């Protein structure tokens, strides 16, 4: 997912850059006519294309709802509380393959709860906001140690606000 996002972005950025380069390479005075080309039709096609693409991408990327919270009898519920500058996690051993719902709270300022895998890839995250409990779900597929980082700047020891959870096979 991470690399796909990067790759897609870089390709699209290069496409935009290519359009710039194409136009600029033809910015020299042409054969007499200095008028900008009449490209109203092209602009209209681009506009409609952008709308159609946008609708397709929106529907495709929002179903299923990307912030769905798992609920049910077999869901493992974990309570996470952030405080300057440490996490309190009420259940640090989590079974593999079961949906886990993190209930995230804070005792002071906003924090960001994020789970990183052994390869330092961010898997799932949510804000911790004073006065609220944010919920986010994830199903771990591999057993092992996972690191917890703080993603929302919360004061001068923000980067030290780390912890660990253990995902175990049943």
């Amino acid at each position: 997912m991470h690399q796909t996002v990067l790759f897609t972005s870089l390709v699209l950025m290069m496409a935009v850059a290519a359009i710039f380069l194409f136009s600029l390479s033809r910015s020299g005075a042409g054969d007499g006519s200095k008028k900008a080309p009449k490209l109203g039709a092209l602009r209209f096609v681009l506009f409609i294309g952008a709308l159609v693409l946008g609708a397709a991408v929106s529907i495709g990327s929002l179903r299923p709802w990307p912030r769905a919270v798992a609920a049910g009898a077999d869901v493992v519920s974990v309570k996470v509380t952030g405080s300057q500058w440490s996490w309190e996690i009420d259940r640090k051993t989590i079974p593999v393959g079961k949906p886990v719902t993190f209930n995230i709270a804070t005792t002071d300022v906003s924090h960001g709860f994020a789970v990183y895998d052994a390869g330092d890839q961010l898997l799932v995250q949510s804000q911790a906001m004073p006065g609220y409990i944010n919920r986010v779900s994830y199903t771990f597929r591999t057993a092992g140690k996972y690191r917890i980082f703080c993603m929302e700047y919360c004061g001068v020891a923000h980067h030290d606000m780390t912890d660990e959870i253990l995902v175990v096979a049943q």
Partner: protein
Amino acid sequence: MAQANAPGTISAPSCPADGAVKLTMLLTVAVLLLMMAFGLTMRMAQGALIQIDPTIFYRLMTAHGIGMVGIAGMSGSAIMWYFLSRHVSLAGWVFWIHLGLFVVGVVAILGSIFIGGYAGAWTFLFPLPAISGGVWDVGAAATYLIGVILVGVGFLVYLVEVGRAVIERYGNFANALGWPLLFSGKQDDVPPPTVIAAAAIVVFNGISTVVGAAVLIISLINLYLPSFTLDALLAKNMIYFFGHVFINASIYMAVIAVYEIVPEYTQQQWKVSRSFVASWNAVVFLVMAVYTHHLFQDGVMPAWALVMGQIISYASGIPLLVITTFSLLTYLYRSGIRWDLASALLVTGIFGWSIGAVPAIIDGMISVNNIMHNTQWVPGHFHLYLLLGQVALTLGFSAWLTRTGVHASLSGWNARGFTIYLLGGMGFAIVFLVSGASSIPRRWATHLPEWHLQDQVGSLFALAAILGVGIIVLPITKRLVLSMRG
């Protein structure tokens, strides 16, 4: 085109508070270079090339954030003022008040950070200014908030004057936003692009300033009376609404330089078409409604607001890419444009803004945001359209403002500086994007060893960007100083 009297003099017709505009540009160059140096320091610290205390790092981070946002807004407002005065009557003293309040605010902000130790990030996210873990005291946070309020009051005065002058000339905002052309195709007295842009900016930046002032005063009261609490979700909505609109406005104001200067090069006026008017009117709505994409990771936000955030993030790219970028490229096509520092920088500004929109829109998707939010992807995308967008537009305007009568082409040190800046800026932002895809969090004073290499490469590009900007601004600064003395 107005010609220069002699090399070294400025040939542009002066505007009300011409001196204040030039002073703003000088201030911009100084603040920009200082804040870029702060940025380089932070990247080097992350890459373990230097050792700095995390407390100092987060102070630098706070200063870098508010300094860059502030100077982007200030320089954008100077560009808009300069060109709007060609079309409506502005009172020069108002810009001086705006600039004066800005300077006083900046002094307060710098004092709060480097004397008072405030390091709550520029976003002053409630309740962090009040709860520092014992690092800074209430006075420092209060001074910071007061500094931001002063800058905000300056902007309010500025926007009201712009609105007043636009109404004086066009009767009302419906006319100034081109509604007669948009809705009934009336061709008489259609406002020029600058006026349409200015009217749109007054509407959305005015609203954001009012909301920002309210949340700043509330945060200030909360500092001294902690029992007066604020709903953290409401505060976050207000702060991000204000912050998002404000920083976007800095780009929208600067883009006016393209509408006004590029036609001098292409000998073709920027046409106000129905689609141009429609896109600016759409921007008024889009720029205000899009801020919820900052709150995707807050599960307590209503789902409709998050869906709106994703859809409007995408939609915001359409007026930019299909109207502004597309128009610029068609104007340049076969235009025989003369490339000098100003024209190259202005086109770069639209280029940086356009390519920056790509990672922005992609991160504006909830499923992507789940893994990219608050990673270095975020500074990656916004450095594209700030460092290579807003800054390029501002430097392009400054280069044009201080142009000499000699028709200089892009050569010599100008060309070298420009190339180093462009490559440095691109590399710097792309390293951030790669780091984001590697899940490196943003706003961390110290990094894991496996992240150091990326930080070091990023530092190298940062150094190049500073070097490039330095080479570009050296002659500009000299001519600005000379013209202000004369």
